[in-house]
């Protein structure tokens, strides 16, 4: 029996057959995958999950991919949930955890959504996979398309960081560098989607792609001993994954996988250089997210026109979370703080998340014993350039290869 029975508009509730489309014809609202709840309630069991592979595919029963499908996988997910005692001590938090999603095959969270998207697309007869990307998505799409043996077109802003371009190019996709920012790349792709037979991961197959995000929260709960944390801090770009995490928490409760009946507070993190969701959150009209022109080193989350921004603000408010934003300097400081205290090197987007965690902790948001989880979504080598250009490293010395020079210049 099929688990996924169709698509439904999140705004007006209009229903559609299962197909590669993401927009409601009635109101332009986003479409979500609809599961057959009777099938799901029989299927989803802790024992089945716990006996599954040590990857995000242990939650296959909760994903829009039928059992008969041969999934495209590189072993994504089931990344470490690290108890962060040293960072927690700096911030006055005794139960702080970091979900280190930079440990994925292409070093970002994106492997989760792409593994689901490409598995779905291949099973539904698509021969070409495409995406508009700020870098991490393109990296994952190029890698998984190679793994699946599918044609691949990735569209990126022309000025993407060199490290990201190299990490995409090595998989030999058709790489289209667009002279514009991400929002312009995305707009071009949303027009192209009508005239090509391609599966654009973040556009026409987005209802399935987005579902992969849920595994991050499923894993967090399982790794906490099948418990939901009190608060989760998540970087906000389009807001797509933020929305799915609340859904994931609801599913964990609905299917009896966790005993709690309270979803965590969901808190969003943005860079002030691209903070359309935060701007709306602190305004009198959080339901009107006005686009901005991005200008931040946190390029992977620099979306000026975030389609799910309104939902982020609703979910943050409904769950007792907030949306907060940090400066460029706070981003780099947070990257260094995380590395120095926990041995984790995250990219600028992770700096945004840890920066917001730090800012909120220092502002007294928590008593201290709450279980707080921050999602660290990408690896630092992707954006190492921001550190090279920042003030240098105070503890660096340069010496001759002699004992004398060492004794003269190094304090031990």
């Amino acid at each position, binding site marked *: 029996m099929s688990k996924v029975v169709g698509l439904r508009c999140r705004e007006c509730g209009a229903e559609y057959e299962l197909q590669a489309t993401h927009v409601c014809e009635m*109101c332009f609202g986003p479409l979500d995958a609809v599961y057959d709840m009777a099938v799901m309630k029989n299927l989803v069991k802790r024992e089945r999950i716990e006996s599954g592979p040590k990857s995000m595919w242990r939650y296959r029963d909760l994903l829009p991919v039928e059992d008969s499908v041969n999934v495209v996988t590189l072993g994504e997910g089931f990344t470490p949930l690290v108890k962060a005692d040293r960072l927690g001590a700096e911030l006055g938090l005794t139960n702080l955890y970091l979900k280190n999603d930079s440990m994925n095959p292409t070093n970002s969270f994106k492997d989760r959504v792409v593994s689901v998207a490409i598995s779905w697309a291949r099973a539904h007869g698509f021969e070409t996979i495409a995406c508009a990307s700020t870098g991490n998505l393109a990296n994952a799409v190029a890698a998984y398309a190679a793994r699946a043996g599918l044609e691949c077109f990735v569209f990126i802003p022309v000025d993407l960081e060199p490290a990201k371009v190299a990490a995409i190019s090595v998989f030999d996709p058709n790489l289209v560098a667009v002279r514009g920012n991400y929002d312009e790349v995305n707009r071009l792709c949303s027009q192209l989607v009508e005239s090509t037979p391609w599966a654009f991961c973040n556009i026409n197959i987005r209802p399935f792609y987005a579902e992969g995000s849920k595994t991050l929260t499923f894993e967090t709960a399982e790794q906490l001993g099948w418990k939901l944390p009190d608060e989760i801090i998540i970087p906000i*770009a389009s807001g797509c*994954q933020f929305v799915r995490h609340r859904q994931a928490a609801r599913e964990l409760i609905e299917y009896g996988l966790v005993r709690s009946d309270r979803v965590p507070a969901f808190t969003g993190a943005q860079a002030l250089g691209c903070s359309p969701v935060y701007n709306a959150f602190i305004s009198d009209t959080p339901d*009107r997210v006005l686009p901005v022109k991005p200008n931040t080193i946190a390029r992977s989350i620099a979306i000026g026109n975030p389609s799910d921004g*309104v939902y982020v603000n609703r979910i943050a408010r409904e769950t007792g979370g907030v949306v907060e934003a940090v400066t460029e300097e706070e981003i780099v400081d947070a990257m260094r703080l995380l590395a120095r205290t926990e041995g984790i090197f995250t990219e600028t987007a992770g700096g945004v998340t840890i920066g917001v965690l730090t800012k909120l902790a220092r502002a007294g948001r928590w008593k201290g014993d709450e279980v707080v989880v921050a999602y660290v979504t990408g690896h630092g080598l992707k954006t190492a350039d921001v550190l090279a250009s920042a003030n240098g490293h105070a503890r660096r010395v340069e010496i001759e290869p002699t004992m004398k020079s060492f004794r003269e210049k190094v304090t031990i």
Partner: protein
Amino acid sequence: MAQFRIPGPLRRLSDGQVTVPVEAADLASAIEALDARYPGFRDRLLDENGELRQFVNVYLNDEDVRLGSGLQEKVGADDEISIVPAVAGGVS
């Protein structure tokens, strides 16, 4: 005359036409003109307060009108007005 570019999901309203010419001085009157020719567009593009719907992006010659004057944006005879459904993307 200015040209509207109609996205796939709305072409049933425009009898399958990809582009529709309109005579108008600004975006608000352009939408009125489009709706007069093919009824239904106003409701799809504007909410009950007469503002652009959250999930609709309108570009005047490749510029997002929300970054400019919105519905008051002036429209010239050679301008192209693109309607594009909002999409999610990026990393997060």
